[in-house]
């Protein structure tokens, strides 16, 4: 499946900018800016176009990195750099 390489969708925000606890849906992922293995791992965990996610936690130290994202019944830790590649729209 070919995914749109749009880095920013008008009206959308990047996943790392989402307020904590705000449910959202991934509308686009800029796979090209990610390392291929990491892109594969993110997709294997379900972080893909159309997935419903909630930002759950941010790290405490400089850069508020890493992030923990709730997806389905799972919590996945990832770096801000990964989250920044994902455009989301708020739902609910």
């Amino acid at each position, binding site marked *: 499946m070919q995914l749109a390489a749009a880095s920013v969708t008008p009206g959308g925000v990047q996943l790392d900018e989402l307020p904590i606890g705000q449910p959202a849906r991934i509308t686009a992922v800029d796979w090209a800016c990610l390392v291929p293995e*990491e892109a594969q791992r993110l997709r294997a*965990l379900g972080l893909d176009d159309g997935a419903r996610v909630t930002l759950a936690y*941010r790290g405490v130290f400089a850069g508020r990195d*890493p992030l923990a994202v709730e997806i389905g019944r799972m919590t996945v830790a990832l770096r801000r750099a990964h989250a920044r590649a994902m455009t989301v729209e708020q739902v609910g």
Partner: protein
Amino acid sequence: MTRVRTAALVGNPNAGKSALFNALTGARQKIANYPGVTVERKAGRMLLPSGEPVELIDLPGSYGLDATSPDEEVTRKVILGEMEGQAKPEALVIVLDAANLEQHLVFAQEVIALGRPTVVALNMIDLAERDGLVLDPGALQEALGVPVIPTVAVRRRGLTELAAAIGEAELHAADPVHRRPHIDLTERRLEAHAMADGAILSETKRHRLHSRLDKVLLHPWLGPPILFALLFVVFQAVFAWATPFADALDAGAAWLADTVRAGMAPSLARDLLTDGVISGVGSVIVFLPQILILFFFILVLEATGYMARAAFLMDRLMAGVGLSGRSFIPLLSSFACAIPGIMATRSIADPKDRLTTILIAPLMTCSARLPVYAVIIAAFIPDRSVGAGVGLQGLVLFALYVAGIVGAMVVALVLRRSVTKGAASGFIMELPKYQLPTIKDLALGLFQRAWIFLRRAGTIIFTVTVVLWLLLNFPRAAPGEDQVDASLAGHLANGLAVVVEPIGFNRDIALALIPAMAAREVSVSSLATTYAVSAGDETQQATQLGDQLKARWTLPTALAFLAWFVFAPQCMSTIAVTRRETNGWKWPGFMLAYLFGLAYIFAGITYWSAVALGL
């Protein structure tokens, strides 16, 4: 005799595979490595209801058949029957986390599509119920086209039914309707969602336990202090709890040596037994309690799911030196032993990141250094308080741990900018649900560690001690000559002593460093053997090693000796496992060179600073 049939457990990480494996096989397990790779092969015997034994293999957790890590590569190869030295399993048992079907059914479909005899264990169904999910295994069985058995591994629920289904698995390859090998990941994910929706009868929104715990444990300001408090308790316990057991083992070894001494006529053979075998091996076995307590905590942290949170909390700090939170788990394990630590780096996907972690793992203060530190500290550091209930001895030990950690961080920073230069590594990790570990799984894990340690003590350390004793006792000294001076080992050490004298080491230390290449703790038993041999009469022999050291070493020498062991890569097993993990001698060679270099420099700095300060 017909060959025993094989079944393999497959599934996503955190599906509860290992608990199910333990429940099905009990203590009848064999842990080895797959040939050519260092991925652990866990196999055990289980009995079918018919009484037929089946070999069950626990495969590494995997998200799919497109492997990205060495672990997943093994899973793929075994499932497809491409793994050398491993018969293609007759049956596959897919383990699903009942509370996370949408995710786990993605890989399950991929495996079922292979058309092999397959059974599904709908595991941890009790936790799903705790989360307010009511599931219909029948609907899932209908959708997947293979038998689905609800199980709760830790409560032994559903095990008989699962065993029966494994026995009949060959009748149950998915029918062609359910074999859709040509759909891609996105379609499989949509299908997984549909199947999960079909299998979930009702869902009550409950405030799930793990998100409540995470609110505290991953809290930006509470999380890190809780982690450090936990680590402090762990290390405190390692020393406080172990003491009575260690003392008992110590007394036992002394008693055994005395009994042998009393019961045998004086002879070289008697000396070999008491001074060589019993005092040598005994001085190492004493540390079993500490090792077990540290492993106990690591096992608990892993089994409860907290370890992944620790990785999350540590990620930013690790990123500061070019690593990721994933390196935290191998490095923490390295506090017990660098070997499982280095093997645990396989979960790090980025090769440069992994190599850096392997290279710094030996700097974490492993349990083999404890015998060395404990003996020297007890002998040379006064047992007094520095205020606020903190003892000076404990403080020195703490400083040695910190020196190792700081050393590792600085080395990682330098390596990531030089030899292991590359793009900064990422951090992607599933945070598993919190779970209460079962006593049985913990006991089994601990037993396996204890066995590995004792086997090491019984083989490497035993052999080295005996060889050293022989080297120390032959050729025999002429009357009036010191036995150690006359011995072969004495001559060898004289050569090495020239090299280590500038950093404050004496000949006895040079002598202890040679066999300590096998394992660091051997230096303690070597010193014990050396001083037992050189001691002329029985009363002197009975003197504790600590008193012997105090009489023969200066404080700067003792401190330099401690500094040496913060860095020195004196462990053949670590070198061997590094060679295996990095496929060649280049990196273990590099590791040896840089660590010996650091050890020499820092022992020297310590010695000359201490001398300058007039200690």
